[in-house]
């Protein structure tokens, strides 16, 4: 049981990793235990809560339902790549300002979901944001402040875009 191993090469937050791992290693465990990127959280291990959401070539995925072997050659983005305290992503800033988090356990998954969503829809309505995060469970906030934060980040990102253009 579980004896087959594989070699994989992945790019995580811009950094290339080559690892030899058991074939059944879940991506969530790979990120957390092999790469020590513990910002990606595991909430339910059955694909409902969304806490483990990461971006695979820009598309959101449940890392608890993905084998690490499946992402060989793929570019992965996790919460650790989003921004630092000194250089925060507008989403992080907005979540801070709007109190879009309490315990913070679901937050990384929601931030990654929101990042993908805003890349596709930079000017969302409140209803579209609600729909976008409706696959992520949060037990603390009641979602209201999360939705406010995503709308706020969208606004800030649009402003930034205009300045750059």
């Amino acid at each position, binding site marked *: 049981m579980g004896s087959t191993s594989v070699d994989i090469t992945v790019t995580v937050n811009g950094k290339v990793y080559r690892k030899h791992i058991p074939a*059944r290693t879940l991506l969530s465990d790979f990120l957390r235990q092999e790469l020590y990127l513990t910002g990606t*959280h595991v909430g339910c*291990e059955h694909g409902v809560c969304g806490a483990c959401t990461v971006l695979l070539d820009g598309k959101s995925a449940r890392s608890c339902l993905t084998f690490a072997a499946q992402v060989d050659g793929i570019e992965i983005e996790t919460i650790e790549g989003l921004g630092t*305290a000194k250089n925060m992503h507008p989403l992080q800033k907005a979540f801070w300002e709007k109190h879009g988090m*309490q315990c913070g*356990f679901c937050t990384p998954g929601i931030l990654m979901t929101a990042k993908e969503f805003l890349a596709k829809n930079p000017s969302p309505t409140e209803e579209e944001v609600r729909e976008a995060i409706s696959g*992520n469970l949060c037990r603390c906030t009641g979602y209201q402040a999360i939705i406010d934060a995503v709308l706020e980040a969208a606004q800030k990102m649009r402003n930034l875009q205009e300045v750059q253009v």
Partner: protein
Amino acid sequence: MSERYVPDVTVPASVQKEPPRSSLRWIGKSMKRVEDLTILTGKGIYVDDIALPNMAHAAVLRSPYAHARIKSIDTTRAKALPGVIAVVTGAEFAETVGPTLALSCPPIEQRVIAIGKVRHVGEAIAAVVAESRYIAEDAFDLIDVEFQELPVVADPEQAASARGDAVLHPSLGDTNVISDRTYAFGPVDEDFSRADVIVKRRLRWHRSSAQPIETAGAVADYNVGSERFTIYCNTSMYNQISRSTCAGSLGVAVTQVNMIPSLVGGSFGSKWSTHKVFLLAAGLARISGRPVKFMEDRLDQMSNGDNHGADRVYEAELALKRDGTMLSLRFTVTEDWGAYMQYGITTHGNSLAQVVGPYRINSVGARIISAVTNKNQQGALRGMGSEVSNFVIERMTDVAARELDLDPVEIRRRNLIRADEFPYVIPTGNVYDSGNYQAVLQMALDMFDYEGWRAKQKAARAEGRHIGIGLVSCQERSVFSPTEMWSLNDPTQPGFHMTSLPETVRLRIDPSGKVFLQLNAPFWGNSPATVATQVLAESLTVEPSDILVTFADSDNGSQTSAGPAGSRYTTMVSGAIVNAVAIVREKLFLFAAHALGCAVEELELRDAKVGVKGNPDIEISFAQISTAAHYFRLDFPPGPEYMSGLEAVGVYDHPLSAKPADDRSHLGIYYPIMGHMVHAVAIEVDPNTGKVSFLDYVAVHDSGTVVNPLTMDGQIYGGTAHGIGTALLERFHYDENGQLLTASFADYHMPMAQDMPREIRIGHVETPSPYTEYGMKGGGESGRMAAPPAIVQAIEDALQPFGVEFFEVPLTPNRVRKVLRDAQNNPD
């Protein structure tokens, strides 16, 4: 009108040092949280993020049966699996770890791993330690267990009739009813005999639970040299309670256990004491000789997390005069505790702290039947039982309103305790410290536009649409005293009758002028560091950016810190900070007076400096004073009062508590810092599908002085969401065989973004407590304590044309449809 019954309780004088006032600089301001940057960047350390060198992983084989004897268990094949380090049965584990915390009276023995018999689906049968969690779970298939099934008790109302093999704990007698006690608080019979109207209903509150997104977990190590356990875990009670009970279960001295807190990914009560989790990791570490991590998976958490919420059947009666005046509430409640009773019947003590709601009810009669069944045991859950009694009194009030042909708002208005009646002693003895219920109600009616919604409802009904309105006025008791954990027990055998539940901080001003504040409870999802920063900035006149808040482990922590629970933390930690500041201030003044050549009485704190009152030019900074206090002892007189350093421990005892009466004619003062809220909701029900949609939601709360409106509103949003889940979605559904049918997030539905109202509109009334520092009250549980009765009232209101009533939660579409179908099939 006869004189109101008031139990013989003396309300102590206030110990408040810092009165509420409008001139505060930091308290009352929306401040961004100091906790957030670490978490937002993915750098917060939760317990599952801790990895010790050479660490092994544990997994637990759980019972597939609700009630069975373990005839034999053979772990030979599992032990032979490569990568497996140890496989441990209940009997083997008991050689290292003794029984766990059991506060019921009589105590019910509990084991981390069952010995000889399992009493619910999910109970631990054996634990595996392996090089990885994957291998540990592989080994499950290689453990050979032979069960003998026993009769299952899944209905609490059948617990009394169970005999023989159906009895869960035969050593406590040939019954599954652990206790059955009746209490009279005031002249119940007289009040019922003078009533014009008595309404009676049966109410059913099904079990749900917190289910934080992070499960419970622990990483433990045992050092054979020092003979000490080091346990990282995400429990909250590790300083006052858990380190002692943990050491007790491990059979070692408290000096041999250090519990280290991590960030906690949500609790809502569920992680108050995760004793089976940290004891499992600790015991396995000792047995295997390796550091061991055990993280519950979601199935572990749901089936064996020891934190299911209340599961009650009420037969309730409310006695009233014809004008709607409430006289007395009388009920029999049967509680389904599950297989064990770790906290005794604490949640009923909790309910009785505010059982009359915000109403002037003269007396209360309660019969409390405690049944054990083949289900996971209960634990703490946001509301701790009082959310259920809120539901009962609010629903009974609605029945009475209908019976008396009164508007639901009007019957409430007629019975609300008046603002001039506080402190108000309720029949059970608990005190409501302060409030202005009329003001809260009025703000809610205005914000919600009650009359407007009634008009819209009428118009919609003419179009065949079913809009319903709910409005409830509810209490949130806060800042508990632990007498509720034993006051309902037989007075001759009350168990461990503790009356202390203090909170403590350690404060020190560094020679740089920076300020360190050590808390003795973890971050468990709320905002302790932010709140403490604001209160310390206020009371010490320092900038928030100059404060560092840390969380002590149990080696360095104070046993006089109970941590967050029962909406106590903000109030209690603020009291501890005020007391610590008082000590440090005295020393600052002493050093400053010497340095400035003036008298202590002339000095004041201002912006991290000590200055002479009325003279802005004469002052000295905290940094200068602290540098001198740490490095220049010989510049000061030799007396002990000039001892080096600027450090203090601030302890804060419960500000307003009193013991229960010896004969339990009252329960004393134990949950007096009383919050209040009105929730008003408009919903639409589709009678064809049972689907409920929110049209509007207003929540007006009074939590006394609000420290941080931003985070307070966060608690209200989140608590209300939790209450919406309780009202409409969440239920741990056990079938008649004791099988848990809702053991994943696919079956146990918690609110997602689409299940919520588009906006919860929040209003605040601030009635400061005269008893706490700055007038604070707790507020973290309030949303969940008001939403269920408001929503159920609204559903019932929407479906009035069908003549149906609802006295249960959750009201899933399926349940709504069933009630409608039954009414249509059996018209009166």
